[in-house]
């Protein structure tokens, strides 16, 4: 544990920028919208910026990515396949705890099962993560219901907590410890840790007054969603309001579904780029099989699937935590007003009855 002065905290990003591509939360000047994006100038990164509008998962799992290029030589009957993704070391500075929890879900999906996703692994393995404790929630937050905040508990290299005049720097990995030691910082002690605890407790108590947009009593509905005892009418009520835009999946820090398209190049015969892009279970074509059968044709069945992913115990066993990380972005972007917190309310309403 170390301490770093507020005026010096930018040095972490500067130091990381020596051998990493640095990403962090930045405010777009014209609109005031926060983005988690690549910083061309690390001084743009703001640790006090609101939660980024976009999920940081785009760093490891971009919205659209060329994963390989191939060239088929017909006369020679040979094919050349080249991986085509970027693998430079990346540092994420100022990641919010909920977004880190989302990335841990992605890790378990892409790397924690039988097959390891090479592209994801390449993005992820040379990564340095600096999280930022939320000393106060934002309007749409409900991480306290999903066990993913307001402070990160695992998965970071460094964790920063704003103690007022200085930041507490906790190390969460060997790599983090080596890096922090190299910064020549003052050591912190248990009194600082106690201050952090106080700040986190205060942050939790602030949810009642600040985080008023969304409440999601996840534990209450998890049993119902897992066992499938949610009435069909409830899913129909939710499905009727789904605009099938895909936004909930795109903004979700833990949604991992993707589409693959081979795009042929009209200027080079036999050449194609393989694109991987975000996909969504809200789309009818997503679950449609060759031959036309669709196990989840009605929209309510597709919604049901999404919330099974986020709220069921079976899925939790894969992620080792709930699939929902409580960031509240799906409620922001949903044209049908059926972000996860509202869905939890509708399921709970049925239980209460």
């Amino acid at each position, binding site marked *: 544990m170390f301490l770093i002065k507020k005026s010096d905290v930018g040095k972490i990003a500067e130091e990381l920028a020596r051998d990493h591509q640095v990403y962090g939360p930045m405010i777009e000047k014209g609109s005031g919208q926060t983005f988690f*994006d690549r910083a061309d100038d690390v001084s743009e990164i703001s640790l006090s910026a609101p939660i980024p*509008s976009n999920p940081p998962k785009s760093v490891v799992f971009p919205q*659209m990515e060329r994963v390989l290029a191939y060239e088929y030589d017909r006369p020679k009957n040979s094919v050349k396949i080249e991986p085509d993704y970027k693998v430079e070391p990346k540092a994420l500075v100022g990641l919010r705890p909920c977004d880190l929890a989302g990335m841990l879900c992605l890790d378990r999906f892409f790397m924690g099962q039988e097959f390891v996703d090479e592209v994801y692994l390449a993005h992820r393995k040379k990564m340095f993560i600096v999280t930022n404790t939320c000393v106060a929630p934002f309007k749409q937050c409900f991480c306290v219901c999903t066990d993913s905040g307001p402070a990160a508990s695992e998965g970071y290299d460094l964790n920063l907590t704003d103690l007022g005049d200085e930041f507490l720097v906790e190390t969460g990995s060997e790599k983090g410890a080596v890096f922090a030691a190299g910064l020549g910082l003052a050591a912190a002690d248990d009194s600082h840790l106690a201050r952090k605890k106080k700040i986190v407790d205060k942050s939790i108590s602030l949810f009642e007054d600040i985080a008023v947009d969304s409440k999601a009593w996840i534990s209450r509905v998890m049993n119902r969603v897992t066992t499938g005892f949610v009435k069909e009418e409830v899913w129909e009520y939710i499905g009727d309001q789904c*605009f099938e835009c895909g936004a909930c999946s795109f903004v979700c820090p833990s949604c991992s579904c993707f589409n693959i398209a081979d795009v042929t*190049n009209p200027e080079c015969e036999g050449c194609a780029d393989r694109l991987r*892009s975000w996909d969504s279970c809200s*789309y009818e*074509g997503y679950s449609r099989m060759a031959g036309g059968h669709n196990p989840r044709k009605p929209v309510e069945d597709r919604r049901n699937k999404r919330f099974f992913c986020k709220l069921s115990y079976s899925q939790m066993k894969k992620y080792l935590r709930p699939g929902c990380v409580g960031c509240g972005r799906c409620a*922001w972007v949903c*044209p049908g007003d059926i972000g996860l917190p509202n869905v939890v309310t509708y399921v709970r309403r049925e239980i209460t009855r």
Partner: protein
Amino acid sequence: MNQKPGVCTFCGTGCGHFIGVENNRIARVYPSQNHPVSKGRLCVRGWNIHELLDTPDRIKKPLIRSDGPFVEASCDEAVGRLIDSLKKYPPESIGFLASPRSSNEEQYLLMKLARSVFGTNNICLDSESGHRASLNVLHAGTGMAGMLGSIEEIRGAEFILVVGIDITRQNPIIGSEIHMAARAGAMVVTMDSRRTQIARLSKKFLQVRPGANKLAVLALAKTIYEENLHDPSFLEAHTEGFEGFRRAFGKLSENELYEKTGLKADEIKTVARHLARAKSAMVFFSSGISGLDEDTIGYIYNLFLLAGKIGKEGCGVNPIAGLNNLQGGYDMGLAPDLLTGFQPLADAATAKKFEKEWGTALPSSPGKPIYRSLADQASELKALVVVDHDEGIVRYADAIKKLDFVAYIGAFKNPFAEYAHVVLPIATYVQEDATFTNAERRIQLSTKKIEPEDGLLPGWKLYSMIAAKAGRAWKYAKVSEVMDEIARLTPAYAGVTHAKLAGGFGLQWPVDDKNPGGTRRFDLAKAGRKLAFYGVSDVFEAPSADDRFPFLLMVGKAQHFWHQNNLMKKTHIPMREYNATLMDYPEGYVEICPQSAKEIGVRDRWPVRVVSPHGEMRVSARVSDDVSPNTAYAPYFVQEMISRFLLGHTEVLRQGEDATIPVRIEKV
């Protein structure tokens, strides 16, 4: 940071987004949270616009052909061929088919090119006249040729009527605003023959018999009038021409109205009372590829005027443009009889203003809409210039093949280019600064995000080059100077400059000295005139079924436009989604209810024959609760249906969204 603000250019909603760029290529898109229209939302199309903007399916080189296949040419050579070919014909034989997707600046310059360089008024947009019908009604009634209300005020409306538009599919973010209003307590009523998503989300669904929207609107107006729910002092002080409208009320008895619309007395009366008593009310209807017919729009407008729901906060008669710059297209004078800002070409003072600015005489011979010329065997049209045609199905393909000369100008590969003799590429809208005007008259600047590929010119530069080579030098150093010229000539755009639009979320016209920050909605207090009831007909030819042809077949167009959209085919995910229906029903489908299916003896996806007095087609049955017994619905995106079955029904098709054909459906 690598996030560049812009405007989505699929539909007429005009949502705000951010585009991410990697290596001069469009890599991603994200919604703009603080945008007043979209408030952080996008639809399936908007969320995947980066797939379109990154497509390799672009036109990148000028192409010319004489008799054989296309050969690549220099831009100089292709433009030279274009000019030489057009100059061979008298102006009456030349036509320009403009695009409702092009930016205001490109549309304006194409209009200027047609009129001031090639001397023809044969110019129109490449969609049918649905939106024109709306603008005619609203302009005649109020003087404002655009949406009277505002998307931002939807959530404040107490009553919302949605007529014949599948709005959550066609303009999803406007549909979302209506849904949010309903959730906040607004009385949302949908009037349609088919149960759409917005019908399911409405508090009340008036499932009218096909072809009877006008009658249902009449029934609402009649109730308001006969129950004295209107405000006579408002009619007296602010309106004129009510007598003409009132005459229609006596044409049909109440019972006839209920019978022809298929609605019940209490349904009509409840909705009419809600409308009349609400403090604020809005109506939305389709105005896209093919909207409602002008008479039905006239009835809708008159209903809202009678109810006193025009010109106040949360009120408005709101035609919904299906394409991103359809409103801008009319604002830029892309019609044979219009100059910019709905100023009539026939008006001598206006014509003089343009002649002075352009330094040339305007052509005096009246122009003709291109589609009418193509449908007319005796047309004089010989040469046609087409810009960024949208539909995958090229209608009038035979008529186009017969033309002597066709030029295609566009950014993306397009089946239309097959008919061309000269193809000229232009840059896409992210490769130049451009303004677009959405359905609520919001003029938004979308800034340049990437450099055009080598040698590609943005539209405004290409049109300037054509003009220069044809002997008329236009002196625009930058695209913003085109907008300056538009502002000089167009009262509603008088205060618009690119500098003023930069960094913001756009301004709603009129933007002028009196309204420097734009005009959110039509304001009765500032109108300075009486609002006129629109002159509507009192002829009601609701189609009826009989024993031989017991089904009323609705032909849906606008909501399925995206299925065969040329741009959609250049994406991956939206193409998959829009094609899902086509994959399930590759020959197209006719939608019938379970009861009808049982009677005919078919199940979902079984083949059926649809027989009308004019022809027949074989399609699959799609069994759905969304239609009522004895009505059927066929979407307008199946090649065979458009090219064969509907050919005999041109009169019917002119009715737009209300098009209805009595048919018989047989098991094959």
